[in-house]
């Protein structure tokens, strides 16, 4: 035969306070420090630089280490007079740093005033055994006829949203003329190139410094970004063939 236990509603406050107090005391005082046994093991000590014990990855629930601790090179330096370390010690394979551009010729051909021309290509980077990289760009001068007297200015973007070599902004007004670029893809600063309407002018050699268009702090296995080049000229633009040279510089981090 079961017996029903009824809580007196008058004492419910006391029950609740007791419950909360018990839980709090249990939480605060009954907690014990969680120790990881591995921390006391010899492997715990290997993280410092010249202790010649072991190498490789170590991990447990409470610690994570990756080291390439090897022999100290003091003896080698004293006897030979030099020490060479090629690549990064913490990356196991000496794979190459690679940079690719899908198309080196951005040929707009004939231009229609007031109608923007768009072309694109792809930049690809693999860091290999480097840990991080940056790709910077710079142009030798604005697009100009070979005699150098007439140019197509680099874009300043829309009147209400001016852009700079280091600051992309909206360029959607077809009555705003010039030459600029948009970036999209891996390792691109999407806070600056918000969408396909955001453009920057190229920095100019001897006036500006090269600007970063792709960068990563860490290993890149297949980073790729699309560069969209936009050119828009007014009806008053002098006829001729306009050219310039744009350089992309890919450097691994050290």
């Amino acid at each position: 035969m079961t017996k029903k236990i009824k809580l007196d509603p008058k004492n419910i406050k006391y029950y609740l306070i007791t419950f909360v107090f018990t839980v709090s005391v249990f939480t605060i005082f009954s907690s014990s420090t969680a120790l990881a046994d591995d921390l006391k093991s010899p492997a715990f000590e290997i993280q410092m630089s010249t202790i010649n014990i072991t190498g490789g990855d170590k991990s447990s629930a409470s610690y994570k280490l990756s080291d390439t601790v090897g022999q100290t090179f003091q003896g080698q330096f004293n006897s030979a007079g030099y020490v060479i370390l090629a690549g990064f010690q913490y990356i196991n394979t000496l794979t190459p740093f690679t940079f690719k551009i899908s198309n080196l010729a951005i040929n707009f051909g004939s231009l229609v005033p007031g109608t923007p021309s768009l072309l694109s290509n792809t930049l690809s980077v693999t860091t290999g055994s480097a840990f991080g990289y940056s790709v910077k760009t710079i142009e030798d001068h604005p697009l100009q006829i070979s005699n150098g007297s007439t140019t197509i200015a680099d874009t300043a973007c829309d009147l209400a949203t001016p852009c700079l070599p280091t600051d992309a902004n909206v360029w959607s007004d077809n009555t705003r003329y010039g030459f600029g670029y948009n970036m999209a893809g891996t390792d691109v600063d999407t806070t600056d190139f918000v969408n396909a309407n955001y453009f920057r002018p190229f920095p100019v050699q001897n006036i500006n410094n090269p600007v970063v268009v792709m960068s990563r702090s860490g290993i890149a296995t297949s980073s790729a970004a699309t560069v969209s080049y936009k050119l828009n000229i007014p009806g008053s633009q002098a006829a001729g063939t306009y050219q310039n040279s744009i350089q992309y510089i890919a450097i691994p981090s050290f």
Partner: protein
Amino acid sequence: MKNILLLFLLSICFFSLATKNVYAADYGLSVTPPLLRVHIKPGKSITQVFTINNLSQGNQTLVARIVPFTEADDQGNPVLNPKSTAPWLGYFGLANSIIKFNEPFTVAAGATEQLILSLAVPDNAPLEDVYATLMISTYANSIDQGFQGAQLAATIGSNMLITISSAAFPDTILKIENFTPQANSLFKIGNLYFADSITPLTFTADVHNDGNFAAETKGVFRITQGNTPVYLEGILPVNVIGKSSRQLVNTDGQPFSFTPSLGQIGPHQITLEIKTDNSNTSNSITIVFLPLKLLIGLIVVVLIIIISVKITSVKPNHIPESGIDNQKQHL
């Protein structure tokens, strides 16, 4: 009719023979190693082979040169100074028989070339660090005049950190700076941080090299409660060139992170330690973990229960039957 046919066939043969392979103007180049770290005594010389591979579909005409740098950002990206005329640039040379610095050379499509870099440090060379990037650029001395637009050029590089010193371990002076926790549920009183005991925390820090020689950031991120270690994580060993700063990250390249457990309550010491070959540096902060979210949750639950009990314990108002009768009579 025969003449026309013959002319047609001859034309076809001529154009068939005259055509050559045409490739899209792509570019692809790789370089190994991407970093060269050399520690050398004055009066010594070394050679290092840099292997470059032409990954593009066509032949590439390239130029190799050495560009110094003295600065870098906090991610280890050098700020190149192509106009520098540092006297130590003369220490470098190419031991190749044909390829010379600043002179074009051709690498066939898919082919590999070796640049044999020589570094000869004179006896009277100043004891210092020199930093440079071996840059390999595409070379073009003219642009097609019928071309309207931008002709692209590409450069790939490999960094070189050279320490010229008579000592095996030149002095390094590293300082850990800006060591701070990042979390929403965090507040600071004096030098003490207070944080919730079940909310993950991330930590950011920089290391500054006050010395003149590059150093490596080998060390650990450690959390202790009392003298008992609670959490340990390795610092990514990266190079910090002289008079520069770098961001410290864990071995995954991410900020240090720690998720306390429910029972980890009270003061905890958070320490970053870096040990170079001849010096140690560390920086610590203290965080008091409190069950803030848990207590807030309990208080909310208690309040809800109390309010619920109060609402359910209120007796409904009863209208006396005699009163209803009186109302009926009145109507």
